[in-house]
């Protein structure tokens, strides 16, 4: 599909989301869809680094929580308006991503993955011991009493997340099609060879880690308002780490469509499982599905679909 068609689809989706808030009353659906859309952003962001470049990030929760806690601090300190939260959350998490990017100078493969995991735990410990944001007891954030144009704050957050998800997908698609994306793929295939051919590997990796981190931070910024009561264990939840890498793995890591497909399928399945069975069982399902996919369908659903179409044509 061409860019113009996709843009039209995106605008139509935002309008449809706004229209939906006029019709649908049941708040549960907004809460549930918000979570799925949040995963679309996280999975897409993870894939920019993990899928295109091949650097596995186990610390998605750290970036997400950085965005969430940046927002919480700004709300508490200066009662910052909503757009400022998004920008600030993205900036701080992006800076963290830039730092992680410099780590790639020394650490490759597994060591990089372990370092991101360590980063998440260190940050969580810092937040747990930080009195200003409530430490381990957590922090209350009051939603603004009213928000223009929407009857209710959850509906507003839902529309915001629709826009963020579309923005993340657009960013990923743009990167994928530009010279940056081709450079990142070259790094994934063979970093030394790419460097020798004149690909500016460090600069590209820094772009990937920064953009990936910033998107995760933006996804986390509305989180204090979504929960109204946020504690470190919910912001640093390991679910974010596993889901944001499981979803691209299941969907397919080579294109921007993969994380979207994975996040929608797995996210929706989890929401249904949480309601109908139990939240513990839904994680077990995620674990089993992920293991099954990496063993049986390493290219994900997008890969399966492509192979099926190629065979249908032949």
């Amino acid at each position, binding site marked *: 599909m061409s860019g113009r068609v996709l843009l039209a689809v995106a605008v139509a989706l935002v309008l449809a989301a706004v229209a939906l808030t006029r019709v649908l009353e049941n708040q549960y659906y907004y809460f549930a869809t918000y979570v799925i859309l949040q995963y679309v952003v996280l999975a897409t962001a993870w894939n920019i680094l993990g899928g295109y470049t*091949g650097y596995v990030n186990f610390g998605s929760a750290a970036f997400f929580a950085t965005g969430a806690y940046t927002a919480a601090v700004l709300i508490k300190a200066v009662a910052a308006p909503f757009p400022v939260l998004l920008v600030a959350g993205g900036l701080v998490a992006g800076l963290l991503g830039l730092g992680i990017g410099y780590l790639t100078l020394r650490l490759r493969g597994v*060591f990089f993955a*372990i370092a991101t*995991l360590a*980063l998440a735990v260190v940050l969580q410990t810092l937040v747990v011991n930080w009195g200003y944001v409530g430490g381990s007891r957590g922090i209350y954030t009051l939603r603004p009493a009213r928000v223009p144009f929407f009857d209710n704050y959850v509906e507003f957050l839902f529309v915001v997340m629709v826009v963020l998800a579309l923005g993340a997908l657009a960013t990923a698609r743009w990167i994928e099609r530009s010279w940056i994306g081709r450079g990142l793929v070259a790094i994934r295939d063979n970093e030394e060879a790419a460097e020798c051919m004149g690909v500016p590997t460090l600069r590209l990796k820094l772009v990937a880690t920064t953009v990936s981190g910033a998107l995760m931070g933006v996804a986390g910024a509305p989180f204090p308002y979504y929960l109204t009561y946020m504690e470190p264990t919910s912001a640093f939840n390991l679910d974010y780490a596993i889901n944001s890498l499981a979803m691209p793995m299941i969907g397919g890591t080579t294109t921007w469509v993969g994380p979207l497909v994975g996040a929608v399928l797995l996210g929706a399945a989890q929401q249904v499982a949480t309601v109908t069975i139990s939240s*513990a069982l839904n994680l077990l399902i995620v674990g*089993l599905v992920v293991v099954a996919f*990496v*063993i049986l369908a390493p290219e994900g659903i997008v890969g399966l679909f492509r192979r099926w179409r190629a065979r249908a044509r032949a």
Partner: protein
Amino acid sequence: MFSLDLLTDAVVAGILLGGFYAAVSLGITLAFGLLDIVNIAHPAFVILGAYGAYVGNSRLGLDPIVAGLLGMPVFFLLGMVVYRVYYASFEKRGDESLRGLVFFFGIIFIIEVSLLLQYGVDYRSVDAAYLGATLELGPITLPFRLAIPFAVALGLTLLLHLFLSRTFWGRAVKAVSQDHLALRLMGASPVRVKALAFAIAIATASVAGALLIMIGPIEPSVGREYIGRVFAIAVLGGMGSIGGTLAASLILGVLESLTSTFYGPSWALAVSFGILLVVLAVRPAGLFGR
């Protein structure tokens, strides 16, 4: 606040704890240090071992250490199976780095959630007559709860060291870590050697788990705390050296114990991960690296 008694107690507790960390890290040193298999699920296997000891202790009335030893053959077979799957799905295709990592990440969740569904989030512990006792050595107090795991862990470390340096198969494991191709040219199958070594690595988790639940009550997700610890130890210890693993474990144990005595337990976990980050960034070869 500061007193010499407090310091001595903290250091002694740290050394005892460090010995136990060695038991948990041996499997990582084998799998990650020698075989290049990034088994981040190792701590989850340790938790599985702890629940095995719990079941053996509460249902069958076994001593937790005996239960842990009895679990070893089962864990050995489990390790064999996991390695075969890992080999066929990832290593053979040369695809182990990214997908292999995700594979083990998925295994963590499967183990953790299965235990959660079976036993819930309540903390579980084991009983043995000697666990409450202490040994007084002059000014030093040795709680059996920590001292016995320490002794068992040292024994396990020594056994593994002897296995790797004295036996034919142990030397084969070391050989596979150094030169795959040469081993194949000598007519030995690297895959069989690696399967054996990985199975041994998982078997140590059964005993380490029994020690874990002797030290304190556990619930299914405590394994996550150990992911950073064991990798910090493996990297610090110089990847694949048994002596280095023991030294790094003791250092980490003492540092953590001092931190939690003087700054509070909530900071202790940051120590191991902080050290890991610094070591990775500054000296990836570890303190005792090759």
